[in-house]
Each structure stands twice: as C-alpha cells, then as structure tokens.
C-alpha cells in the first residue's frame, strides 16, 4: 500500500479517533480548570497517574469498570491536590503543576517497581471488551471512551454556558474579586472545577492505558502539555478544544504511518506535533479580544 492509501484508510481514521481521546479528555479537563481561573499544567501528571491506577485496579479486580472508576477517581484526587495547593495554599499554579508532574512521573515508576517489580511496564490487562464482531466503523463509533468523552464535552459546554454553576465558574475565572464580592465562594468553585477537570482528564489516562492494554513508564509522552496547548489554541472553549485535539492526534497518527512508509528520518515526524503546537500558539496568542481569549482572572486570587 502506498502511504496515501494508508492515510485515507478506515484503519487509519479509526486509529486517529482513538488517539484523540486522551488528548480530548485532558484538554476538556484543562478547559474547566482554566475557565475557573486555575492554570493547570498538572494535566500530564494526572494522565499518567490515572493510567496506572486504572491498570492496577483492573489487574487486581479483573473488572474493567472498576478500572475506569479508579482512573477517573485518581484523576479527581490529583486535581483536588492541585486545587488545594493553589486555591487554599496560594502557591503558584505552575509550581504546583510542575511538582505534581514530578511526583507523578517518579511515583508511577516507584509504584511499578513496588507492585510488579518492573521499571518499564505493568503486566497486560484486558481493558474494555466490547463488540468483538461489530466491524471497524461500529467499533470505532461506539467505543465507550469516545462516547464518554463526547458526553463530557457536551455536558461541559452546556453547563458552562447555561447553568448557575457554570456562570459562577466563569465569573471566578474572569474576575475572582468581583465574584467574591457578590457572594460566590471562589475557593469552593475553583476547587470543584479543578477536581472535575481532573476526573475528566483521568478518563483520558484510563483510555490511554486500556488502549495499550498496559501501563508503561512515561507513556503519556507530553500529551498533557499538548492538550493544554490545545486549550489555548481553542480559546478555552470545549468544542473547539476537541477539534484542536483531533488535529494534534491526526498529526500523531500520520507520524506513525509516515515513519513506516517513507525514508525520511523518524525524528522529523516525531517533532511535528510539537512544532505545530508552537506555530499555533504564536498565531493565537495575538488574540486578545472576542470570546476566544484567556479568562481575565487566570492565575489571580480574589483580593
């Protein structure tokens, strides 16, 4: 098959959709967190720790749904820690995020050795089994993780725009002092937002681990950071963030095909998503008006 045939094949499209899910969940998590005013570079660490939690719990209990719950739960927990440090402890969100990423990177390796005596990967797990005889299209479209991600995006977009909680959350993100002055509990709202964001991001980590049927040390490979860039590129809006993630995942999937099909050195393709992120970042950072801009109170505390 030529490279072109591979690229437009159904397998490739299905692959792209599956690769979008971890990015998409992480960036939805980033959207909730940052719209409430809390910078979240901890997404990378949340993806990583939830991937391990999901695999460890499924390995121990044999239940896929217990694995998903563990992944989502640990994502929420790490989000809660980030919120506690930033909102209550008032430390810089970037410092907290960096520290969480460090702890997650080291901690998952530590746990790998403690649990499985391996420094590279866990034993394999079954992941979620569904529709073995459905055919490619149906299997891709009815992937439970895809459905959950879309549901999360829909729910998030709707609640941000239409509900009282969403309005308060956005108020905390735009002007925390004003929100506080009219009686919104800024600390509580932000803590909830970052925890919910962590849970959604944890779903992405679970999807990533179940897709590969095991946990591998450092398996997130910067996806959390790219997802955060997608948040910025998408102007902190849920659906556009999904679109940006789809674009990054396409580059990612392309990269794998082109590495196998062409004689161009693999490193060139491997850096493509990151270069694309830099370019996209430069383009959108000039934007300061309209509704695709950074929340005004991002990183600010109420006075």
């Amino acid at each position, binding site marked *: 098959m030529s490279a072109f045939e591979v690229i437009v094949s159904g397998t490739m499209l299905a692959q792209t959709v599956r690769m979008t899910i971890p990015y998409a969940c992480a960036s939805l998590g980033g959207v909730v967190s940052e719209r409430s005013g809390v910078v979240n*570079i901890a997404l990378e660490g949340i993806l990583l720790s939830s991937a391990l939690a999901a695999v460890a719990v499924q390995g121990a209990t044999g239940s896929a749904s217990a694995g998903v719950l563990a992944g989502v739960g640990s994502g929420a927990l790490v989000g809660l820690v980030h919120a506690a*440090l930033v909102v209550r*402890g*008032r*430390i*810089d969100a*970037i*410092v*907290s995020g*960096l*520290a*969480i*990423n*460090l*702890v997650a*990177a*080291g*901690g998952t*390796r*530590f746990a790998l*050795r*403690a649990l499985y005596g391996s*420094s590279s990967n866990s034993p394999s797990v079954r992941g979620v089994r569904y529709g073995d005889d459905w055919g490619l299209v149906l299997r891709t479209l009815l992937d439970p993780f895809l459905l959950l991600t879309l549901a999360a995006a829909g729910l998030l977009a709707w609640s941000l725009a239409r509900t009282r909680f969403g309005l308060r959350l956005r108020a905390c993100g735009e002007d925390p002092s004003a929100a506080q002055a009219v009686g919104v509990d800024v600390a509580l709202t932000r803590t909830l937002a970052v925890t919910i964001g962590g849970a959604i991001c944890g779903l992405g980590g679970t999807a990533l681990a179940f897709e590969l049927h095991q946990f591998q040390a450092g398996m997130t490979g*910067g996806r959390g*950071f790219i997802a*955060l*860039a997608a948040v*910025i590129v998408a102007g902190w809006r849920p659906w556009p963030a999904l679109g940006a993630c789809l674009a990054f995942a396409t580059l990612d999937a392309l990269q794998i095909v082109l590495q196998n099909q062409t004689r161009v*050195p693999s*490193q*060139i393709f*491997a*850096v493509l998503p*990151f*270069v694309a*992120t*830099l370019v996209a*970042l*430069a*383009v959108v*950072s*000039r934007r*300061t008006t309209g509704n695709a801009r950074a929340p005004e109170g991002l990183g600010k505390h109420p006075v």
Partner: protein
Amino acid sequence: MKHLVRVLQMPALAGLAAGWLAFCVLVWAYGASPSAMATLLVQGTWGTSYGAGQVLFKATPLLFTGVAVDLALRAGLFNIGAEGQLAVASLAAGVVGSRLPHGTPAVLALPATVAAAMAAGAAWAAVPALLKGRFGAHEVISTIMMNRVADGVVGLAIASGLALTGTVRTADVVPGARMPRLEAVFPAFRGSAASFAIVLAVVATALVTMAHRRTRLGREIGLIGLNARAMEAEKVPVKRRLEQALIASGAIAGAASLGTVLGYKGYFEEGLGAGAGFGGVAVALLGRGHLGGLVLAALLFGTLQQGGLALNAHVPKELMDVLQGVVICAVALADARLRAAAVDAVTRPIAKPARGAGAA
C-alpha cells in the same frame, strides 16, 4: 535581620521536614526500614569522600540550570526549557569540542567549546523568547514544546552523521577542552566524576546574583518581574528585556554541559544530562535568588540524586523524584504563608484607620 533569618529558614525547614516525612512513608510502604535506608543514604553521599565528590558532580549541572531558571524567574518567566537548552548545548559542546585540532591549548579550546554550548542554549531559548516578545505566547508551553523538539533534533543529529558510526555518542573532545577533575588536585575525591566545573558553577551563580543587584540591566529585569507595567511606564523596553532574560537563561543552562560533557564523559551521548533541566527549576524555586540558597539547593538535590543511586538496590531511585516534588510543594507553601503573613503585617496598621474612609 531577625525577620530575614526567619523568612530564609522557614521554607527550607518546611521542605526538609516534608521531604523527610515523605521519605519515611514511601520507604516504609515499600517494605524497607526508613532508618536503615537513611543511614545508607548518608553513607552513600556525605559518608565518604568519594560519595561527597559524586554529590558535587551531580550538583554541578543542577547549579548551572538552577541559576539559569532563577535568572528568568526574576523577570517573572518560567523557563521550563532548560532541559532542551542543555540537550542541544551538550550536543554543540560534543561536536565543536571534538572537531578542534587535537593540540589546541586549553586557553583556546575550553572557551571555544563553552561558547558553542552557550550559544546553542541561547539559540534554543531564543525561540520561546521571541514567541513571548513578539506574539505573547506563554513561555511555559513553548519551552516545554522546545524540550520535545530538542529530543528530536538531537536524535536526528546523532542519527545523521554527527555521532561515531553505530553509536549514539560523538567523538572524544580534544584534551584541551576537558574540564580538569577535582581528584587531580584533591586526591581524596579519587574515582568521583566531580570536576572544576562546580567552581565555575558557583562563580556563575555569584555573578548572576551580583549582576541582579549591581547592574542596570539586572535591576531592570528584576523590577519587570515585580511590576512590568510600572517598568513600561518608565520607558524600559519590557519585551526586549524579557527576551534577553530568557535567552541569557538558555545560555547559562547550556553552560551546564561543562559538568557533564567536558567534566565527566569527555564526549556527548544521547540522554547525557537529562533531568538536570527540570532539577534546575527545583533548585531555583528553593534557592530563591540567593547565592547561598542556590548552592545549598543544588547540593540538596545532588545529594538526593546520588542518594537515590545508593539506595537503588533496596528502594527504587525514583523515590527521589517524588521527594523533589514534595520538597518543592512544601517550600512553596511555607513561602506563600510567610508572604501572606508579611503582607498582613504591613497592611494592617494602614488598613485599619482607612476602614470606613470610603472608596479605597
């Protein structure tokens, strides 16, 4: 004075206490004895002169990257990209150092090699610097992306002929470009990889902290970190200063290759010095802009790294990464608490009479 001592010590104490607590919990959870492991850690680091030398060796790149991150942080910029800047700088040091004529005297070879490394680090930092200055792109994301691109570029360079055939390393640098080992002068450090690069790292740190206080450029960069809008009003070219700070930060991060490429291996290989860039962020956060603080922080994290290796047979060395994160959090928390308390102490007497006075 008393206040200053308190401000300097509280976060450090909090960091040490939290780190110790996390150490005990994790070691115990792994099924080992915390006290036995702590003894092993001390013996493997400061217990012997070899161990102490290894700590100095590990602390060398950390101090360089630490002061690099610190410099950018003074301008309010988070340089998370020291990792990538050091990677391309190390490659440049390995390539330039090995291509010099073999008999080049040290007075020429060493400065040329270091200059190449620093230039490469600066060039790598220039991308996020310009993206920040010209487009306003957040430096945290762009420096992280540049780290990944650095991995690819270094891999590509290694794969496409800059390395010895069939290896992932460059040729040996010429003898004149090597950084002399400490053991050449102090026989007690025999066998450890510590080199005189640690001395240069301390000098660089001293120069940066001094430049911050004593030079116009340094003051401006520091004041921009405190209040960029006020500096804008003072007609300071804020964007240019931010770019300069980040590029200088990249150059200094590149100088960390003195300890790894020139002081240790004598050549560059893929992955050499990995982790020093992120370690530098921790050092900068802990050192808080003081010469002594930065040196002590580099020594602390150097001790943790070397100690991790000493324990690795009993407890996974990744334990030390976790401790590093815990220490950063604890220090930042104590610091935030102190700052809040200091703000309260300053504003309270003023705020009280102002209450009820109206709009303000």
